[in-house]
């Protein structure tokens, strides 16, 4: 294992930000720390970077304890939510910074800077001032800057949160490709599950300072460990497994779990109807309970039959 976190606890005075967290990241693996804001995931990331000292527990790299290694000797790259580019340097100056710290000679450095700018899709931006860049471009430069000195591990703290939605989705895909191509070992902090699932090989769900579940995205998505996690992952209705024909005690339903279908086995009455971009969202009463459902046109008051879409169902536990 490349990175190993061994029962890390971080306390500020009386508050415990991170509580007894253990996690490992294998060489070349991308792990996402996913959780609502304030769950301690950023603190954990900063602890790995060496910007916070754990109250107890240890951060190890290839079995070596990093407690005595200061931030600048860890060789962990860090990308902030809002870039934090050096305003007094050009794009190239920013990207070259880590290489200069490593005393890489000029020719190699220049070449590396150009290839990284190409990698993040910013060819020809070398001499621009960073203050003239858009938010998305700034994040790309921040990423190139972090990757340039070939860090052992890249830490990304909500790398896309400051961007608007369309750009975020595009960049998430680009970022996933970049991390794979460079075979980067990375730890990503995010509160957006789409982002986590796009980027990561494994997802660690954090809640109130603890890691409650770790696993591949598909597994975490389909079997959240408890109701709270399921709610965070988009489930808004909880029913016995028998309701959807599954042999588990409880399942969580997402908005897409029920679909209007004339062959469906469940019957209900449409209570409310909302038009979305590419589908209609319905509120359907079944045996006095209201459920969300996706469907074609239907009027309020209509009797409809519903089919279960297992992609929208999460087994709890």
């Amino acid at each position, binding site marked *: 294992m490349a990175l190993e976190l061994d029962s890390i606890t971080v306390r500020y005075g009386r508050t415990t930000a991170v509580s007894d967290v253990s996690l490992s990241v294998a060489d070349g693996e991308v792990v996402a720390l996913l959780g609502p804001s304030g769950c301690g995931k950023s603190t954990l990331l900063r602890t790995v*970077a060496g910007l916070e000292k754990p109250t*107890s527990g240890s951060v190890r790299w290839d079995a070596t304890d990093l407690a005595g290694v*200061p931030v*600048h000797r860890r060789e962990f790259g860090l990308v*902030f939510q809002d870039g934090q580019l050096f*305003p007094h340097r050009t794009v190239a100056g920013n990207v070259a910074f880590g290489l200069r*710290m*490593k005393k890489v000679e000029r020719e190699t450095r220049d070449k590396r800077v150009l290839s990284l700018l190409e990698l993040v899709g910013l060819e020809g931006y070398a001499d621009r001032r960073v203050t003239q860049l858009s938010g998305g471009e700034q994040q790309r430069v921040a990423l190139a800057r972090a990757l340039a000195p070939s860090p052992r591990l890249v*830490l990304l703290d909500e790398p896309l949160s400051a961007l608007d939605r369309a750009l975020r989705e595009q960049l998430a895909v680009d970022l996933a490709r970049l991390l794979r191509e460079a075979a980067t070992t990375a730890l990503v902090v995010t509160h957006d599950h789409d982002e986590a699932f796009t980027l990561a090989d494994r997802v660690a769900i954090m809640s109130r300072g603890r890691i409650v579940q770790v696993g591949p995205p598909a597994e975490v998505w389909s079997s959240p460990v408890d109701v709270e996690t399921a709610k965070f992952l988009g489930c808004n209705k909880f029913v016995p497994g028998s309701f959807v024909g599954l042999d588990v005690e409880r399942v969580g339903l997402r908005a897409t779990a029920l679909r209007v279908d004339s062959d469906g086995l469940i019957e209900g009455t449409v209570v409310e109807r909302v038009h979305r971009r590419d589908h209609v969202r319905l509120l359907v009463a079944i045996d006095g309970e209201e459920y969300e459902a996706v469907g074609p046109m239907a009027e309020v008051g209509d009797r409809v039959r519903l089919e279960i879409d297992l992609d929208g169902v999460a087994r709890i536990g």
Partner: protein
Amino acid sequence: MGRAVAQARAGLSSRTGWSAAALLPLAFLALFFAWPVLAIVSLGLREGGVLSALADSDTWELVCFTLGQALASTVVAVLAGMPLAFVLARCRIRGLGLVRAAVMVPFVLPTVVVGLAFRTFWPDGGVLPIVLANAFFNVAVVARTVGGLWAHTDRRAEDAARALGASRPRAFLSVVLPALAPAIGSAAAVVFLFCATSFGVVLVLGGSRYRTLETEIYLRTVELFDLSGAAALSLLQFAAVLAVLVLGALARRRRETALALRDREELARRPTGGEWYVVLAAFAVVVALLTPVVGLVTRSLSTRDGWSLAGYVALNTRGDRGTLAVTGVDAAVNSLRTAFDATLVALVVGVFSAVVLVGLRRSGARFAEVLDTALMLPLGVSAVTVGFGYLITMDALPGDFRTSPMLVPLAQALVVTPLIVRMVLPVLRAVDERLRQAAATLGASPARVWREVDLPLVGRSLVAAAGFGYVVALGEFGATSFLARPDAPTLPVVIARLMSRPGELNSQMAYAACVLLMVVTVGCVLLIERLRVPSSGEF
């Protein structure tokens, strides 16, 4: 368990590190400020008579006059500074550069020069010229401190009040003024401090009739050798200064937390309607600020026999019948050199202190407030006391420091350091901590982070602080008048000496020397203005 303890200790290590670093500026203060001042005070206490001085009704008359004139000066400075603050912060009009320079120049003019400038209008001195001269100095403090905040306060709160039916004056009184209150309070505290300890102006304009604590301390130590009396007065002054400093720190803290700040660019616009009256008032203040300066230049060129350059020519001599030990030109060169050394010392101590203060605050050490206030103390303690303290303590340092050519620069550096701290600190604080962290994760050691991130970002304000410190050192009079050796006086000392001797040539030469000093000062200020450093420096 042992491991947990070790790590808990590591968590404290940055705080401990910064606290250790804070010891350096504190040691500087202890050696070159606290020790001399305490030596003077204890000297006074030992001789007894402090109680009798405190019981003396003359003492309290002196205190009343000192505080009264300081209060009056502060009121005048605030009233005159407000329209200027408005124009600097909110108006997009022509001649703004001129306004800015005209406001800044008086603040850095040597006190002796200002005293003489006002004497060209009130040859016999008096209370009014003392108050006006003190205010003249400090209009800049009000205009820049209040203007700095005003320039970044959201105009929309005012617009909202207007939309809710408040008249323009009403909106100003109920929305704008409360928002500016912390800056006004902080500026007023500093102005009050400067006025209460002002020395050169009162000495030149008050003569023996109007005396403040500061000039009385000087007179008692130098002319009456009444050390215990002087010590008692120093103690009184110290208590007052400390109180004002604490109030100022409180006001500053509120200002740092409570405001939604915006860029000046989107707030400045052409004045409309009634705002032109404010602009008019501001320009009236500018004219009033320039009048003494013009008067001084005129006076330096006019003699009983009409216009003449005699005073300037005389700068190359030792004055009428050898009043001075060196020529005016020699003194000028010595001034420049001394101020350079002082600035260098103050820059090193000041910048180091600012860095430590930022580090301490960041690591959450309470100690930060203590260091911050301690660094401001030399501004308010009688420079005369400090100067005299040097004379009785510095011989204890290796190599008889009293005769060292570094003595005067060190005393001046003590006065300049707080100003440098106040100018550099806000800029350093404004640097996002995560920018430093980004550099660290890219492999930059703490020293390298400072060089690669902090230094380039504060560079311009550093140069401005250096220039500013240089002119203040150039004009320093209180401590220098005590410490400068007769064979190596600075220009302000020479001016005071020339004025105290009879002979038209002497006073002519003094006025010429004033103009010379003023030219150098104005040159420095214009240079700083060209650097266009954000005007939000705190004083």
